[in-house]
């Protein structure tokens, strides 16, 4: 690997790296706008000009590969002059409307101006170029051409990643503007990414803009639960509400991107239908009861069935949107506490949903089908359960996140499971299955818990608790632990780390893994 010097620091960097990447390795930031590691290198913004000894003029760091013996200065007088110059040029025709711009707070013009410029304007305000503002270019993206610095990240994304090329640069010189072709709005499932990669306020998200100032948002690393790809994301939230999902770089899963379907899936996690209290059926109505009462009631009924009909009179259906920890805790609970072999997975996608595409999106809308399968929870177990109901062996069903009624349709559900004596439903939302339940327990949605998902390629990735669940809802693992303790008096691990540790020692697929060491990109399941 070539050895070079950047700002007096020695760097040994892979020969394929450019100076921006190499500088990062020694903590030197080279400012840049147009360069994006997931796209081609146009070298147009000129923000990354650096001084390379023996080169006749300043070089753009983005398009300069490391070479043996290279001596680079990113903060020499020449480089600093160029940085200030480029920022001045970028700002002369920029509207500087930060107070009303949604990008404020995460704007590279603001950041770099503070870091590298801080000079007063030498350009008369009334002479700024005027261009189009608040243009709805489709797919939920708004364009402000005056704020645009023409770095062409968005056009390159549509040219190179989605290959849909809806955006182009029109006109010439300082009349240049990004735009769609007349009458042909942006129409692809990855449009949100251009908002992410726009370094300024030119592209903003229609649904997000004007709803929250970005500096109030907290970021929690997580995984998109929209499909079995499990794109790495950051959840941006404030006071228990999610405002947006942003893709998080993961070379092994989603690169820098995520699809719009997943990006816009979060409102479904904070619906008004969220359950906030345990409920019990009384005179054909679900009424609220405290957790203590709810757990005692469920435990005594389970104990009755077990005693009278045996463990196999009780079954659990666990949904493929459950975490590895939840599924493992349920599996252990069924095996050791109930003594039942009846555990089935529900992995379904609503009819009419999107299919696989060539980039990220998958037809299977469950984030953890593979994880449950790795735990030996069969996807075809529902038929066996229905048969057991028909034969009278199966009396009681526990559903975990599984909206069986919606998945099967009410008629089919009644045909197969109508003869059940008792149903305990653990659910985030008041859904159709809750209406059939004897008891309903409110549990946390995935942004509200720690744990992990295993994507369809066997990549195990961490999710983290962004904020607590609403009302009296509790984590699924906690609910299982409470029920188990009420039955056998044994204290179970309640933290995701501890459950994962137990899973890693009991399950070959997770052998040698630990939640804390999954890292931000996750890890592959142990070879099976």
């Amino acid at each position, binding site marked *: 690997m070539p050895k070079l010097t950047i700002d007096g620091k020695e760097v040994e960097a892979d020969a394929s790296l450019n100076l921006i990447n190499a500088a990062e390795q020694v903590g030197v930031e080279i400012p840049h706008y147009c360069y994006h590691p997931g796209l081609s290198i*146009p070298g147009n*913004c000129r923000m990354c*000009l650096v001084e390379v000894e023996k080169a006749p003029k300043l070089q753009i760091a983005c398009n300069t590969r490391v070479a043996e013996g290279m001596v680079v200065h990113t903060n020499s007088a020449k480089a600093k002059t160029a940085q200030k110059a480029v920022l001045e040029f970028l700002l002369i025709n920029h509207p500087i409307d930060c107070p009303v711009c949604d990008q404020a707070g995460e704007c590279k013009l603001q950041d770099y101006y503070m870091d590298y410029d801080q000079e007063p304007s030498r350009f008369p305000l009334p*002479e700024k170029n005027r261009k189009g503002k608040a243009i709805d270019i489709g797919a939920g993206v708004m364009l402000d051409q005056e704020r645009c610095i023409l770095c062409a990240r968005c056009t390159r994304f549509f040219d190179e990643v989605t290959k849909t090329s809806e955006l182009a*640069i029109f006109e010439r010189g*300082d009349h240049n503007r990004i735009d769609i072709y007349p009458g042909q709005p942006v129409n692809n499932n990855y449009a949100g990414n251009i908002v992410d990669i726009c370094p300024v306020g030119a592209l903003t998200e229609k649904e997000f803009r004007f709803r929250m100032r970005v500096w109030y948002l907290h970021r929690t690393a997580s995984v998109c639960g929209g499909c079995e790809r499990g794109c790495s994301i950051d959840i941006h939230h404030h006071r228990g509400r999610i405002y947006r999902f942003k893709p998080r770089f993961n070379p092994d899963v989603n690169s820098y991107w995520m699809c719009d379907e997943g990006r816009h899936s979060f409102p479904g996690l904070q619906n008004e239908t969220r359950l906030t209290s345990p409920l019990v059926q009384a005179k054909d109505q679900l009424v609220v009861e405290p957790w203590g009462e709810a757990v005692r009631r469920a435990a005594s009924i389970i104990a009755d069935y077990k005693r009278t009909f045996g463990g196999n009179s009780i079954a659990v259906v666990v949904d493929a949107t459950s975490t590895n920890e939840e599924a493992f805790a349920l599996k252990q609970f069924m095996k050791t506490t109930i003594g039942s072999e009846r555990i089935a997975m529900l992995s379904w996608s609503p009819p009419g949903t999107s299919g696989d595409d060539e980039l990220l999106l998958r037809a299977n809308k469950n984030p953890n089908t593979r994880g449950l399968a790795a735990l030996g929870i069969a996807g075809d177990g529902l038929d066996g359960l229905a048969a057991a109901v028909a034969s009278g062996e199966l009396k009681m069903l526990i559903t975990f996140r599984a909206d069986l009624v919606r998945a099967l349709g009410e008629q089919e559900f009644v045909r197969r499971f109508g003869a059940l004596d008792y149903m305990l439903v653990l659910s985030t939302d008041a859904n159709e299955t809750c209406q059939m339940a004897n008891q309903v327990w409110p549990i946390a949605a995935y942004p509200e818990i720690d744990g992990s998902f295993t994507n369809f390629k066997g990549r195990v990735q961490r999710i983290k608790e962004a904020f607590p669940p609403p009302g009296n809802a509790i984590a699924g693992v906690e609910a299982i632990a409470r029920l188990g303790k009420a039955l056998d008096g044994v204290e179970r691990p309640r933290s995701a780390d501890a459950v994962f540790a137990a899973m890693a020692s009991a399950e070959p697929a997770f052998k040698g893994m630990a939640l804390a060491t999954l890292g931000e990109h996750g890890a592959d399941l142990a070879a099976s």
Partner: protein
Amino acid sequence: MERILTRWLDIPDLRKLNVYLDNGGYKALRKALFEMKPEDIINEVKNSNLRGRGGAAFPTGAKWSFIPKDSKKPVYVCVNGDESEPGTFANRYQFENDPHGIIEGIVIACRAVGSHNAYVYLRGEFTVQQRSMDAALAEARAAGYVGKNIMGSGYDVDIWTHKGAGAYICGEESALLESLEGKRGYPRNRPPFPAIVGAFGCPTVVNNIETLSNVPHILNRGADWYKAIGPEKSPGTKLVCLSGHVNKPGLYELPMGTPLREIIYDIGGGILGGKTLKGVIPGGSSFPVLNKEETERAIFDFDSMRAIGSAMGSGVVIVMDEDTCMIDMLLATAHFYHHESCGQCTPCREGTGWIEKIMTEMEAGQGKIEQLELLNNISDNMVGNTICVLADSIAMPVKSYVTKFRGEFEEHIRLGRCPFKNKNGSAQQAA
């Protein structure tokens, strides 16, 4: 002096194939195909010291030698006939009057670099010139000088003409390649250079029309003959585009190294109306302006012009008399580069417009003295900081005008108007 590139002035209808053949046409090509190996051609051109006529003066033989010898990809020859530098009008005459001279040069170049396909890129406005070139190509194809198995040699070269859409920037070789590929005319980052990744991702030579027109003559008469014309390191004749306030403007073929004052006063017949010279734009509008004193000692060849801080560029000489408003000249120049900046790189996209805005105020007498420093500073911030040299092409002239004609700027500011115009804004004679 013997006319070489402008033989058409002595030979009527040289554009026709039979006349071209009667006057030694395609002899050099025969030599290149049957008597010389590709490396012999390259060596002969190297030895001739032929340098690119498009403005950069890069040695042609060296450029050809950069093409990989064992390329698995096809090699292309692209011929730059975008001629759009303000002040240039040489290529258009060549297209109209000596298209076979161009074609012969192209086929020889193809043979030298192992190319079987050449594109002639003409500027958007060259409709007549394209017609002339296409007619000559049809003749040459029918007679077996272009196409399959040229002159029975077994070597194939096809040539296409392609007209741009009228953008100045497409004369820059990498923007030309983008435009040729059907894309927006944006100059490319280098490396990679066109010799490795050029047209359609393949090794490509881009040569100017005038450069290639020299090649048949060099092969016919030898490198030593060529080197003997003009200075040894910058030899040959040059098509000089003389315009502005001279009595006899026009296209002249002159030996390299002709003094500028000889071009203006002897060949051009002196300043129009017996007035005095104020300055000259040499090379093209993108090069530093010369004042009277510099003009009178300037020698017109690549190296001598560089030595006095300007350039020979593409052989332009725009003469300005004493009544020329240099502020207006610079405004016109700034307007051109603002209009023609592709807008890709920040300093050029924003800087060209800023300079034009300041120059508009200056010419209107609304400028301020601090703006002279600002103009210099904007220019410094543009030079060398962009992908191509369009930024330098306005920044260098700006610096030269501000330095050499500072007095005129100051007078505009002091008077609050242009001293060369009356109150109505139209030109007036100086008192």
